[in-house]
């Protein structure tokens, strides 16, 4: 059983993670750790008692986001999942994390190299599942024979374009929830054989 002190320690760590996630989503990754500490109601030193460095904190936050993504996708590559199911799952995660994800793709090149590789790893994991599904459907004759990487990049291209121009597409409400169906149906009809 965990001691009271351990439970307390975990809860403080989680509070820092949750606060950092929220601040990064709202204000971007240049937000200071002092700002995060203040918002979380802990001392600045406490942040570094839980995370050795800023990189550590960033890796943890982005890692958590990616774990949720990976978990959602892992079961999807099974033969029962359709491409539509897969795109729905992808959109759902992005809808749940829209502000954070937009910051991540906008500021990605400014992040420490190690953190950027975490992002790249995650893209590879999504690409792996996407690839399995698309290859299966090409074999079944339901999807056009286009190089899989172009299908992958087209799907991401559509989503990122809407996110990057959110102020034009949907100034007053989250953009992905509003256009999710249209994006999915358009992509599906473009790739259908």
């Amino acid at each position: 059983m965990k001691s009271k002190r351990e439970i307390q320690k975990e809860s403080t760590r989680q509070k820092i993670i949750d606060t950092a996630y929220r601040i990064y989503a709202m204000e971007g990754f240049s937000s200071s750790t002092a700002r995060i500490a203040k918002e979380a109601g802990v001392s600045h030193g406490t942040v570094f008692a839980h995370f050795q460095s800023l990189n550590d904190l960033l890796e943890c936050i982005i890692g958590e986001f990616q774990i949720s993504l990976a978990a959602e996708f892992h079961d999807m590559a099974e033969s029962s999942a359709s491409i539509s199911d897969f795109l729905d799952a992808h959109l759902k995660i992005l809808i749940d994390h829209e502000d954070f994800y937009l910051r991540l793709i906008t500021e990605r090149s400014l992040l420490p190299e190690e953190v950027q590789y975490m992002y790249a790893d995650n893209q590879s994991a999504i690409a792996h599942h996407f690839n399995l599904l698309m290859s299966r459907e090409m074999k079944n004759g339901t999807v056009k024979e286009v190089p899989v990487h172009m299908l992958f990049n087209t799907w991401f291209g559509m989503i990122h374009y809407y996110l990057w121009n959110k102020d034009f597409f949907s100034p007053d409400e989250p953009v992905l929830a509003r256009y999710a169906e249209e994006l999915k149906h358009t992509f599906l009809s473009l790739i259908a054989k």
Partner: protein
Amino acid sequence: MKVCVACGMPMEKKTDFPGGDEQKDYCVYCARPDGTMRSFEEAKTGMTKFIMESQGFDEAAAEKIAVNSMKRLPAWKDQFSHE
């Protein structure tokens, strides 16, 4: 849940394991046809090729991503211990 020591893939189902052998610590993609785990070089080449094919990235960039990903995996710890 097990995670592949060589590529980090979660292994939940029997089909995730080489030959369905759930005792293995590496996944079906990291196994050679004879069931043994592929070498560092084989894994690096395989991952680089996969990144290029699935995402269309440049070869040098894809290799950098593959190597950085391998740095975090237990199977290749000795390869990076000199760093």
